[in-house]
């Protein structure tokens, strides 16, 4: 054995006993924490699910499975009626994302610490806008806009736009804050104006990231657009609503499949665009 330090005789040596004891204590403590959390969860389940559910109406497991089984089937006659709402849903998603991007331009500008025009005021306003946009569910936005501009495609577009601003502006602002200040200095030294600095020095650096974020949010907006119709904002959601109301469960499944189809298209397109960026 290597002869080590003499002061081992004075300092307490680590032994297996100490280690085992420590581990036991730590496991015991962890166990207690999990027990308390577990009790909390059980209580919540009791209060929310067990007491609240109408168990009699639900019936046995077999009956539940049968209820679920009602959905498995396709209403082929519905397909031709789905074409227009599907296109509408897709368009609402695209226009909503576009409008959102337009709103993001000032939002990201104000929300980036390094280029915001008047930091004490514009920066917090922009950040607040982003948080509000992200915190409110798109259904709530849709309800709001339907009440204000009426039914149809327009409230859907507004709802998606306002909902998307939060994420896109936040990511873009962070991208702007992370840029390399070198090119900015360079363009400034050749005498470029602020706009030229934006175009030549800032934009090229953040472009791939921003496009990535926009495509990501666009894909999600396709999902959202499909259900906004449930509250009157146009597209497949309306068809879904009608099928549910007439208890045409196969129709419901058909609409869901149509939504899937749209999402697949979205994924393929976004994959292509991402690849061409790299």
């Amino acid at each position, binding site marked *: *054995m*290597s002869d*080590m330090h003499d002061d081992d005789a004075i300092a307490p*040596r*680590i*032994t*297996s006993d100490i*280690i*085992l004891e420590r*581990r036991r204590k730590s*496991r015991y403590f962890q166990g207690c924490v999990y027990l308390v959390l577990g009790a909390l969860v059980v209580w919540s389940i009791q209060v929310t699910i067990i007491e609240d559910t109408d168990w009699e109406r639900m019936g046995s497991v077999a009956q539940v499975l049968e209820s679920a089984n009602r959905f498995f089937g396709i209403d082929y006659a519905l397909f031709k009626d789905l074409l227009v709402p599907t296109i509408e849903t897709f368009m609402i998603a695209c226009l909503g994302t576009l409008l959102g991007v337009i709103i993001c331009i000032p939002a990201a500008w104000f929300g980036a610490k390094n280029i915001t025009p008047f930091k004490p005021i514009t920066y917090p306003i922009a950040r607040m806008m982003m948080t509000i946009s992200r915190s409110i569910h798109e259904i709530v936005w849709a309800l709001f806009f339907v009440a204000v501009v009426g039914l149809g495609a327009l409230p859907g577009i507004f709802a998606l736009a306002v909902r998307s601003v939060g994420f896109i502006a936040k990511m873009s602002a962070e991208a702007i804050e992370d840029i390399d200040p070198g090119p900015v200095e360079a363009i400034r030294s050749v005498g470029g104006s602020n706009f030229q600095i934006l175009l030549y020095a800032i934009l090229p650096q953040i472009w791939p990231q921003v496009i990535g974020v926009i495509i990501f949010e666009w894909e999600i907006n396709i999902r959202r657009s499909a259900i906004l119709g449930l509250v009157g904002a146009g597209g497949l959601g309306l068809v879904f609503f009608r099928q549910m109301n007439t208890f045409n469960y196969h129709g419901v499944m058909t609409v869901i499949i149509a939504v899937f189809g749209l999402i697949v298209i979205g994924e393929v397109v976004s994959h292509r665009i991402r690849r061409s960026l790299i």
Partner: protein
Amino acid sequence: MAILEISNLHASYSVTGPEILKDISFTVEDDDFFAIIGPSGAGKSTLIRCINRLVEPSKGEIIFDGRNVTKLPKRELRTLRRDIGVIFQEFNLIERMSVMDNVLSGRLGYTSNLRTLFRAFPRKDIDHGLQLLDRVGLIEFVDKRADELSGGQRQRVGIARALMQNPKMLLLDEPTSALDPKISREIMGLIKQMATELKVPCLCNIHDVQLAMEFCNKIIGLQDGYMKFYGPTEEMNKEKLDDIYAMEVL
């Protein structure tokens, strides 16, 4: 008795890719400290990884401790790997865990799933671990996180971990390439000392030829997947080295 017999080993990383190892054959005896040398890309790392089947060989045979490694079903790989300790170039410690936990992870091949979940290693493992840590000189670092250690210290933990397995053989994959020359020598010395004490043969992949000639008793020279030299260290000379490296090296 030979602990490891390699015959006509071929390997490539993918079925359609180029062959990395071409017809390698050699034997490691019970008391060898065997070196594999050669330029980068010669296949040294691949060879080491074939032995415990981190890389699947495409042709040939590997007999370890009387067991045919290449034909072993996946289930028994675990028992095989338990008996082979590996020390890595990049240390490969679990950065966020303590030194003690890292050393104990060497016993995972002998630990049940349930014990692993709760990190409840038996007392004799903890005793053994403390003993090894003391031997490599890191007893005060027992509770430190692995990422708080220097390179040389991390490799010592790696040595302790490998030896926790009570292995029948040690594989070393460029154990000192990431360390500076003085520490490299210390680490190689420590490994050789402990391997000799515990009577564990070593198969070592080394970049630094001087270290190889100093610590190892037998050498294989690889070039581009071929075996260009196989014999005791005494037979190695400048000409043969130049042949392997195809350039001036010493």
